């Protein structure tokens, strides 16, 4: 039940996060106190190396990025399953090896499919 136990081993990480937040906020606050304030409309324009901006900054990205992102997510999840497997590999042994090979072979089917459908090509 949350609210009963404190993960005290993670105190250094908590301190790290607090320092990081304090530095981030501190820089912004110090900047807003000490900087000069001379607003004029040109300052709100996007900076394009002195040229006038052409077109909208928002345009629709190519759907190919989506395939790359999806493949990344899938193989990221696969890599996460490898981690507890590697920890217990010594105690389970060959059985664990077969299990993981079945798992990876099923995913390799998807990889080969992506390859054959030229999902990695950019044209």
């Amino acid at each position, binding site marked *: *039940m*949350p*609210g*009963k*136990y*404190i*993960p005290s081993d*993670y105190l250094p990480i908590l301190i790290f996060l607090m320092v990081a937040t304090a530095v981030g906020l501190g820089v912004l606050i110090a900047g807003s106190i000490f900087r000069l304030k001379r607003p004029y409309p040109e300052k709100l324009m996007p900076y394009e190396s002195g040229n006038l901006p052409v077109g*909208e900054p*928002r345009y*629709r*990205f190519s*759907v*190919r*990025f*989506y*395939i790359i*992102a*999806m*493949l*990344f*997510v*899938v193989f*990221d*999840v*696969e890599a*996460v*399953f490898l*981690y*507890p*497997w590697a*920890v*217990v590999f010594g*105690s*389970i042994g060959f*059985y*664990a090896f077969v*299990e993981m090979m*079945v*798992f*990876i072979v*099923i*995913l390799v*089917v*998807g*990889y080969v*499919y*992506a390859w*054959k*459908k*030229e*999902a990695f090509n950019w044209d």
Partner: protein
Amino acid sequence: MLAEIFFAYFAVVIVLTSILVIASRNPVHSVLWMLLLFFHIAGLYLMLDAEFLAAIQIIIYAGAILVLFLFVVLLLNLKEEIKGRPFSRIFVIALVLAIGMAVVISSTMKLLPPGPVGQYSMDMIRATKGGNSSIIGRVMYTEFLFPFEIASTILLVAIIGAIVLAKKRLRS
């Protein structure tokens, strides 16, 4: 007492950031609030002594799933959505329903019997060599082997689905 303060902090931030996720006018801001939300959920997992789950929460959800969310947001044409109102007209009805649901849950929560105490207590996990991830590995690769192999099929479906959706011109 300290544990309650930490829990209250995580709970309050989780509720506030979830509201901001659905209330932000800019979808990119929604995704960034969701990033904060995922980090605080990881903190909650740590307080449940689920260290492995907390690490996975940050690596997979904050690292990978949010990238996917961001890509989907960038793939959409957002100009109209940003100009529009974030809440639809049913907002009042939704709010009333949500408050009613909260009242029902908070009043009936204590009536629920706690589940049976399993073999994997905090002390048992602590005493095991390798700790949290070793216990998860042992359970997943012996007892829950079949669901684990099913997971690979689900990931395969995700790959094929993405390619079928996004790769129109097939040269085969």
